[in-house]
């Protein structure tokens, strides 16, 4: 039995923000076994980052005890920092320094002897694949490369304990895979103890152990398998040849006894309260010929099951939109043709073309920095186009009359309402902007408050609301004037799985009622919600079609049922092969 490398006993931490007191951590106790990867998982605001910062001695402890490598966290914080490496959520890189200069800086900070540097640098560059880029400015690296450099900097001196705060968020699947590879190699080679937080629940299954944190309290520490046992025999795949997945999900999620209904490949993934699913049959017509299949439960199933118990607020209020139910028609609403945008010599969006039909959910998938938001901003008329064309409902929004914007709703990636104004003040203001006054205004505001359950926050400054409510509020503003076309830029980034489900339920309902939705995301599995989609990387479109078509692209003998992530990796690798082939052609005359 090995001694715990990190142990935490009855840890508490509170913050005071203005008049509010926030209990970030409440009596948390756990220990990390040496030489393995432990995942730290929980919704936003659960206290993950606070916990990590406490472990590194960057915050002071209110009460409780932290021991790292036998050192006491309260009195020997400086010594702890020498044996712990921490990679914060926003990488602590200097964007104006080159890759090499960043490494040198961290080597200096960590006091790595000059004689040892060369060999360590070579190891790290080989590991991260950054060797060809040592002279490049860190600010000019792609999102994935930045994260790898951040990790390399944290590993300049082999630490005993490595703490990584959401290292893979927003990073493309290939870089994610590589990051995990590096982490595991370090664990095996150096016997490092790793604590890693993540928003991707599928990554939990790659951890040896998982700590589940919720509202500052620790719910459970166990292996992923033990977590999954909890929902054993309660996970199902439901499908019907006659109903779309979206309609099926909409209906299932309203049924009592269903804990979770999620659109996945080939149907709707359902978690039931008991080990019996036959009760759903009477709610459907015999003609729908519903098929149910028991499947292996995932960590996510158990996570949702666990959190729903703690969360009374289920957010099942559906949106009833004003447009009569119409199914996706062939009418093209959004047209993008050879769209290009450059910033200096950087091509952010390169000859992107696609069409979006009325009443469909159209997804733009890609990692951070793929050019999704830039495309969006051009479509909404917020950014001038370098070349090419785009039109929304037949007009170019940059040059069209202002009234044309009455048709669109826009939700920016970053929370972008007035933080110093209350919910009511914001709603009133945006209603006025959309020409809603007096009675009409009151009616729509009441609708927004009711639908998005904003009542308790009426007079709260929007900046002080929890993240999930901020997102609801942004969605409410985007829908204030009942637009026919919705632009949603990374609506699910940074929000927890429960809020994501709630968001998609609302979006599905809107699409069902005929609203055209254009959405960007870096969560590959969210592609299953889309009718059509494009996959973007480095400003170009890699592929377009239905989610099924995408997956078929990647279908191979060794991969009979590829996931969306597999498809994405396949497409990127293909592009890289093409590029290297082209380079060979150029070099051989």
């Amino acid at each position, binding site marked *: 039995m090995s001694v715990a490398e990190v142990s935490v006993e009855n840890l508490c931490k509170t913050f005071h923000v203005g008049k509010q007191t926030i209990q970030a951590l409440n009596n948390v106790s756990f220990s990390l076994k040496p030489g393995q990867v432990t995942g730290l998982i929980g919704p936003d605001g659960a206290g993950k980052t606070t916990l990590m910062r406490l472990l590194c001695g960057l915050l002071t402890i209110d009460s409780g005890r932290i021991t790292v490598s036998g050192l006491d966290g309260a009195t020997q914080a400086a010594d702890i920092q020498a044996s712990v490496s921490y990679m914060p959520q926003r990488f602590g890189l200097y964007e104006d320094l080159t890759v090499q200069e960043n490494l040198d800086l961290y080597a200096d900070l960590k006091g790595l002897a000059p004689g040892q540097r060369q060999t360590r640098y070579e190891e790290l560059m080989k590991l991260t694949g950054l060797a060809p880029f040592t002279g490049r400015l860190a600010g000019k690296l792609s999102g994935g490369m930045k994260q790898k450099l951040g990790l390399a900097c944290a590993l300049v001196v082999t630490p005993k304990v490595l703490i990584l705060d959401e290292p893979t968020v927003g990073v493309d699947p290939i870089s994610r895979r590589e990051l995990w590879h590096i982490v595991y190699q370090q664990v095996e080679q150096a016997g490092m103890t790793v604590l890693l937080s993540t928003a991707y629940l599928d990554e939990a299954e790659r951890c040896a152990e998982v700590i589940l944190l919720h509202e500052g309290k620790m719910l459970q520490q166990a292996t992923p398998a033990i977590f999954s046992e909890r929902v054993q025999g309660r996970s199902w795949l439901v499908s019907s040849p006659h109903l779309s997945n979206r309609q099926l999900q909409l209906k299932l999620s309203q049924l009592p006894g269903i804990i979770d209904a999620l659109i996945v490949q080939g149907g709707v993934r359902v978690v039931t309260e008991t080990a019996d699913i036959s009760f759903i049959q009477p709610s459907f017509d015999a003609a729908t010929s519903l098929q149910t299949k028991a499947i292996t439960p995932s960590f996510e199933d158990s996570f949702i099951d666990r959190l729903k118990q703690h969360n009374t607020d289920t957010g099942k209020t559906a949106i009833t939109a004003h447009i009569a139910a119409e199914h996706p028609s062939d009418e093209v609403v959004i047209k993008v043709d050879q769209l290009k945008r450059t910033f200096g010599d950087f091509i952010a969006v390169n000859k992107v073309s696609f069409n979006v039909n009325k009443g469909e959910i159209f997804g733009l998938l890609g990692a951070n920095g793929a050019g999704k938001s830039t495309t969006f901003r051009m479509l*909404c008329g917020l*950014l001038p186009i370098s070349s090419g064309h785009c039109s929304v409902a037949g007009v170019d929004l940059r040059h069209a009359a*202002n009234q044309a914007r009455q048709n669109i709703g*826009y939700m920016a990636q970053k929370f*972008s309402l*007035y*933080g110093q104004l209350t919910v009511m*003040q914001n709603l009133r203001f945006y209603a006025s*902007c959309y020409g809603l006054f007096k009675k009409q205004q009151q009616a729509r505001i009441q609708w927004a408050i009711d639908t998005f359950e904003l009542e308790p926050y009426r007079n709260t400054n929007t900046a002080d609301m929890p993240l999930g409510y901020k997102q609801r509020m942004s969605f409410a503003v985007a829908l204030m004037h009942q637009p026919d076309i919705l*632009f949603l830029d990374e609506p699910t980034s940074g929000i927890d799985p429960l809020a994501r489900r709630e968001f998609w339920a609302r979006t599905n309902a809107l699409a069902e009622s005929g609203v055209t939705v254009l959405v960007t995301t870096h969560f590959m599995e969210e592609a299953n919600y889309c009718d059509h989609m494009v996959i973007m990387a480095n400003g170009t479109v890699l592929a377009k079609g239905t989610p099924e078509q995408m997956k078929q692209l990647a279908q191979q003998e060794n991969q009979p049922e590829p996931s969306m992530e597999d498809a994405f990796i396949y497409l990127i690798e293909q592009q890289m092969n093409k590029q290297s082939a082209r380079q060979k052609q150029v070099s051989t005359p």
Partner: protein
Amino acid sequence: MSIRRHLLLIIALAIKELLALLRDKKSRMVLIGPPIAQLLIFGYAATFDLNHITLAVYNEDPGEASRELISRLSGSPNIDLLYTIQHESEIKPLIDNQDVLMVVHIHPQFSADISQGKSGKVQLILDGRNSNTAMIALNYTREIILQLNQQWAKNGLLHGPPVILESRAWYNENLRSRWFIVSGIIGLLSLVVSLVVTALSVAREREQGTFDQLLVTPVHPAFILIGKAIPGLLIGILEASFIIVVAVLWFDLPFRGSIGALYLGVFLFTLSSVGIGLMISSICVTQQQAVLGAFMFLVPAVILSGFATPIANMPDSVQLITYLDPLRYFLIIVRSVFMEAGSYNLFWPQYWPMVIIAITTLTMAAWLFRHKMY
């Protein structure tokens, strides 16, 4: 949309802008802190008047005339006689160490010369390192000696000088520099506040992403502009009114002209500063840039306005630039209203350039709103 709906929209935009400004503790401080601090600093500390001229006397003359001269000098409320010295070598260290501003050296024959009806000789040594102060001290001393001359002439001791200069300062009878400076602050402060408030407004929204959210609504940029201009205008006019009241009630400035003419000036001046602020704001991406931009405009605008130094003293080419400065026009109006009872008809040459500056800057700001996005 009907006119009524346009009006409702503008009101909603202006209310939003005011709320965003007033609900934020930091921006509230910007509105209250600097005006009060500047008013106190300028009102009390910034003065051209010399109240404490430090003096040393080196009197080699034992006579009665020299004693009378010295008592006149030391009796002046503006002059402090600090040292009476006995030797010429003591002069240099006193001036060098800035112990005294000037030394009066009275010739041994002074009283004897005066009593014989000849000119007495007095030497005045001044610290010329600050030429402005030295000039003022020289003038004070000259004035005292002139009065002494006249007195002696009346007593028949001397023949009176052939010409006597009787000076009268109109409008500021006692030439109090506070009148000049406090009236100038009215312009200076409402410029600073309305400029900073508007310069930050668009940049703040850009930084927080709210500007995008605003630009995807059907609201026309012209309305956004009006919505942003109104709070700047209101706040600028309120600040100006506050200082006008303080100037009259606290600093005892006279108010001799037409209040309507002054407020027409305040309105046009604030409008042009709001225009400049919005123009700066729509060029900048971050608030930091906006603050820097505002100060890049402010410093030359104050220097070129005639706030402290007369425009007429500037080189011709620089004088041409001052015509672009709204503060130049407003200072003429405000000083004239306070001190010389100026009214509308006198101010047309000041009003219309401000109208042109306001229209030009506001139009450019509206254009830049949409076109300058990166």
